[in-house]
């Protein structure tokens, strides 16, 4: 009997602790989200009124080739940026971890982290400036080594890789930091034991470091997926989806649909699509990548 009241008290205390966050998120995000889902069943008619149309807008958006093209662009951009960011961050973190001097480790760490503190719009504008085909820094540097000027953001083939470099630049520091923390929390004895067993450094990395970094890899792959799938500011500030639609991403299209074309219903359908896709992929990632880690 006493034990049950203790448990009850625990339950109540737990709920009370999460209540402020829950209440806040419900008010600020869940209610608008529900409203947005409801809006996906209505279409706005000229004059501003709206009319219930059932699943018509879903049918319209999901059969629209422009929409699927934007999904393809988004996925391509994601494929260019997310794995590269994570792998580079891992390499940088391993390198930083090797630095014996703690002071240098934090100074170089800070350098890598700095771009994270630049707002996305500013970062995008700086990079657009660097990429400019005529007076940009990048083509200037290439010309010094005799490479002809490239069109970067104005090229059908180069625009997504070029935007991906911007993304990697912005995100690298954050990911590195997370890996560095993970590396630093791996007890040194593990490596000593491996050394005694005669493991090579490559074996150490594959058999020991990578599995122990699994939680970080999982978390970062989820965060990178979300960040890159929802990419907007960088594209809006630079290419506006161009050239010839080559960098039109889902959220760009969503923004235009809602605020340039005044089609809030269609935009809501796209929002539901993004949300559902991310949720499904994240759950799959969670299931397949999550392994318990014991130190």
């Amino acid at each position, binding site marked *: 009997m006493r034990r049950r009241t203790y448990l009850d008290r625990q339950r109540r205390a737990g709920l009370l602790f999460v209540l402020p966050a829950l209440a806040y998120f419900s008010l600020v995000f869940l209610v608008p989200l529900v409203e947005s889902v409801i809006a996906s069943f209505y279409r706005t008619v*000229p*004059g*501003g009124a709206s009319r219930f149309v059932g699943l018509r807008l879903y049918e*319209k958006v999901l059969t629209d080739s422009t929409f699927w093209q934007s999904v393809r662009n988004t996925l391509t951009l994601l494929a260019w940026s997310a794995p590269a960011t994570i792998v580079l961050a891992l390499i940088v973190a391993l390198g930083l971890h090797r630095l014996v001097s703690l002071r240098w480790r934090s100074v170089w760490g800070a350098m890598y982290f700095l771009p994270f503190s630049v707002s996305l*719009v500013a970062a995008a504008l700086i990079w657009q400036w660097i990429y*400019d*085909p*005529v*007076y940009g820094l990048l083509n200037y540097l290439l010309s010094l080594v005799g490479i002809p*000027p490239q*069109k970067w953001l*104005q090229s*059908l083939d180069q625009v997504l890789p070029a935007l991906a470099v911007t993304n990697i630049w912005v995100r690298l520091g954050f990911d590195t930091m997370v890996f560095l923390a993970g590396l630093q929390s791996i007890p040194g004895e593990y490596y000593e034991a491996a050394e005694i067993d005669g493991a090579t450094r490559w074996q150490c990395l594959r058999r020991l470091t990578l599995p122990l970094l699994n939680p970080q890899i999982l978390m970062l792959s989820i965060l990178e997926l979300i960040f890159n799938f929802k990419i907007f500011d960088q594209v*809006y*500030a630079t*290419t*506006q*989806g*161009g*050239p*010839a*639609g080559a960098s039109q991403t889902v959220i760009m299209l969503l*923004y*235009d649909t*809602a*605020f*340039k*074309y*005044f*089609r809030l219903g269609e935009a809501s359908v796209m929002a539901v699509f993004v949300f559902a896709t991310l949720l499904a992929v994240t759950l799959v990632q969670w299931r397949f990548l999550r392994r318990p880690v014991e130190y």
Partner: protein
Amino acid sequence: MRRLTWSHLTLPALILTLALIPGAPVAQTKKLVYWTHWEQNPDFNKWYAERGREFAKKTGYEVEVVTVPYQGYEAKYLAALIGKSGAPDFFNGIAHQWCGQYDFCDPMPADLARLWDESIPRYMVPIGKWKGVRYGTPIEHGNFQQMYLNADLFKKAGLNPDRPPKTLDEWLSAMKKLTSGDGASGVVGFAIRHKGHPVGITDKFLPFAHAFGARMLSPDLEKATGFANSAEMATALQFFVDLVQRDKVASLALGGPEDAFGQKRAAVIFRESWFFGWLRKNAPDVTFKVAALPCGKACPGAGALFPWTNLVYKNSPNKQVAWEFIRSISNAKDDLAQHESAGILPVWTANLESAYVKSRPDYASTQEMLKQPVPPTYFHPKSNELATAFGEAVVNALYGKGQPKPLLDEAAAKMDKILKD
């Protein structure tokens, strides 16, 4: 580890208290709120506030100008106009969108509407109207493209900058003479717009379309097929594409066309009247002349895809006062003063011969373009979406992603779907 004590909380508490202080001081006078996204014209915007102070002496209402960053302004406008509270009393917008697609605008009092109809150039009369009713006061004259040419480059190519090409054929042969490279090295004749949103691309292509006698939509704005993909339109687009691909007098290797012109990498650009202010500031060493656009079958004339006007918000409790304020500045003198302060062309016909306008380098060319027949306009609630679909075809053709005619067919079908939907 130090214990957390209450003294540690003083700073957060202080910050929290600060945050709760309302930011803007509570206004003593009543005010009219005006929203604009014309960040490029701060003096033009400030002028409303200045005139508002005089207006306040009579009515007690001042004018507060809110300049909204262009980056994302549509979202802010829409949220506020739907939300009613926090919305402006009057704002800078496009009538067929805010009054046509949505029902956010208050119709202009009849006498004031008549005054405007009688006082502005002919081509501007439909601007600010929706279904025959006047909602907005046009605020931008000269929002049509003219030909800016680099006089030095013209002379170097053996052309006379004072006798600019009048027809598209003359223009093309001049472009060829001017071109000595792809812009990255050497000079190109024409600085073409190929970047940015498809709506902007449409805007820059339309003068060519109109010169070929084509139009994007039927005169009643209800049909695209047969217009957006007409034979004339396909010829116009082919001409446009050929500038880049066959004649090589324009280049996709350049960045923004304005910069290319400013850097003397391009000899000619089609731009609106604001451009000469930009040139003076950013490329002071470019000697330029302004001329009317070349004509083909027809003349491109003075037309605008973005007819900016001042609109009064229907749900504003102060809409009567807003109209009174607009009335108080609806005269030739104020029109001239405001536009002159920003270095842009005034709107009222009476000012087109003012000393200020005559002193501008685009005086003669503006006169000439105003004499041409008014080109087609596309003041449709869905103009953004339609122009996007059309611009995609143009830019896809420019980038060689297809032939003009099939791309236009596809665009026309898409536009018809948009029109019906």
